[in-house]
């Protein structure tokens, strides 16, 4: 199960990088970045997953003593938790830049946005 998740996450990263490298529209590039981000998170969570184990939350079904042999790795989950919020902040900054660029140049096509082409 872990293998499929890792493969899917890695493919999503590759699709995201493809989008960032080949697309002309800046909004598309930002979409590519957000896909890259999601793929990275899937890979990280997949690396922390162990077969036939449950979520790291102690309750009546999961006594404290047995927890270490029955839960998945909590550290990647904690990392991804913060990474998702950071990803949103970075996407928001990128979108604000794109909006500002559109307001001054009236286009989002990067092939028309050359240095010195300041009309």
């Amino acid at each position: 199960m872990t293998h499929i998740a890792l493969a899917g996450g890695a493919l999503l990263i590759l699709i995201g990088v493809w989008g960032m490298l080949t697309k002309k529209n800046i909004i598309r590039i930002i979409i590519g970045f957000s896909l890259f981000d999601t793929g990275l998170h899937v890979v990280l969570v997949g690396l922390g997953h162990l077969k036939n184990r449950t979520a790291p939350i102690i309750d009546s079904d999961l006594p404290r003593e047995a927890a270490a042999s029955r839960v998945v790795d909590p550290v990647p989950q904690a990392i991804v938790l913060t990474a998702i919020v950071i990803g949103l902040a970075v996407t928001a900054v990128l979108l604000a830049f794109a909006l500002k660029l559109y307001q001054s140049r009236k286009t989002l096509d990067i092939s028309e946005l050359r240095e010195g082409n300041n009309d």
Partner: protein
Amino acid sequence: MVKKAFAFTLILGMGLLFYQLYRQRSTSTDLNKTARYYVENGPKETGSANVVTSVVVTYRGLDTLGEVTILFVAASIIGFFLKNQRNRKLEGAPGETSELLHTGSVFLVPLIFLLGVYVFVNGHLSPGGGFQGGAIIASGTVLLFLADPSIGAGRGVIHVLESFSGMLYVGLAVAGLFLAGGFLDNRIMPLGHFGTLLSAGAIPVIYSLIGLKVGAELSSILYALKDAKE
């Protein structure tokens, strides 16, 4: 065309790299040392039933503080870039949205805020916490914006809430330095009975503050993007 071929080659290289990493990864069926420590000692030391929460708020709490700071910087940058931009078309026309949306939001927004508060107050017992609760609160704010585009009085509240919760968060973190074992130690308050709402020391308080701060920051980011002119 050359550019696409170059990109394709790069993707192929990255794929090969990933495949090599995948082949070399350790196929252990047990937790590693750090994770084992957190799972075995986390509930006992912090009193939090959710191990992920104890890692986020206490063990790796400094990362969370840095992360909230990054969010604040991002919100500031967006506010700086898109400031003083008012969409004239939307301003001062409260009758423009549909009556259904307006009436629905009156009932739904308090419930959404309540759900957000529930999620971050129970962060140490169940899945959820400050980030999730904050995001839910920001979704409620979006509904508020949609229902009443002329709303502007909320900005002051958002900024006060953000500064207040941020300062209190750092204050609690420093209090851990003097009253307990170190920066961001949650044992400045009694650990209480394991598995109840008022347990886990300062974790529910800190996570609630994180929730309020994240909610306020995401709301101000969305507000700035909404108000940008065409």
